[in-house]
């Protein structure tokens, strides 16, 4: 890449006719039905970090102290699976993966709200912190913000309803 191309936000995909630095919808019949360009890359990166972190934390909890809070830790494992599915499906193109990612992100949103509420009102079954405990307080409330951003992004990059 020449030096002059380094300072623009759109030159990377100029050849494909897609200004990936902006939020414009892709044009053309061979339109990329993707969620993994532009801001989506940051979203996927954050999802990947959470997938990794939630899996590690749930794994540790289940392997070492499952009996202390089985319900909470099972939900923790479930959260990890949801994050993994969300990460993978957001990174892939196509209509089917779009549906998978919408499902995953919706489940994630419901999950963080339900587990957040349960952890608030049912301290007996939720004595310890999981990724969705207290609406993700232990992670700077990112688990609460993430699905909302995810849904917004998915809406922006939804597959065109009508093809030419």
């Amino acid at each position, binding site marked *: 890449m020449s030096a002059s*191309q*380094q300072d623009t936000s759109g030159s990377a995909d100029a050849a494909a006719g897609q200004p*990936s630095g902006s939020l414009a919808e892709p044009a053309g019949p061979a339109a990329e039905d993707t969620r993994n360009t532009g801001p*989506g*890359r940051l979203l996927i*990166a954050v999802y990947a970090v959470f997938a*990794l972190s939630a899996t590690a934390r749930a794994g540790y909890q289940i392997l070492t102290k499952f009996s202390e809070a089985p319900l909470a830790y099972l939900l923790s494992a479930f959260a990890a699976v949801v994050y993994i599915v969300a990460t993978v499906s957001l990174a892939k193109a196509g209509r089917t993966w779009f549906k998978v990612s919408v499902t995953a992100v919706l489940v994630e949103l419901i999950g963080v709200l339900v587990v957040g509420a349960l952890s608030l009102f049912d301290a007996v079954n939720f004595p310890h912190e999981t990724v969705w405990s207290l609406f993700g307080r232990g992670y700077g409330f990112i688990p609460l913000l993430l699905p909302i951003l995810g849904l917004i992004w998915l809406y922006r990059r939804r597959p065109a309803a009508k093809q030419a």
Partner: protein
Amino acid sequence: MDAYFYIILVVGLLSTFLCVGAGILKKAPNDATILSVAAVELSLLVYLVGSIVRVASGERIAGEPWEFWGYLVTALMLPVGAVYWAILERTRWSNFVLAAVGVTALVMAARMNQIWY
């Protein structure tokens, strides 16, 4: 908090600020931003080597050893993964992805310090 943490704190924050600034200015990942993330990786490698030496010379980890090493190994993978992901698409958003590395490494280093002592 020990020296390893403070090194990662400084390098990580510098890297994050640099990458966020570059992203705001709509720059694509360039030598500066990528090297700043490489510097974070280097700081983590220093932490790794130092920790191995300390354990080898008999120092005990107060918390769970495998939790400490798990965090460290994971942290070491993040800069590599982020640079790979960022290089595939050279836009301002890739710089924001790179920016996440420094601050994440910092949080993990804090946690590792907690486990060690």
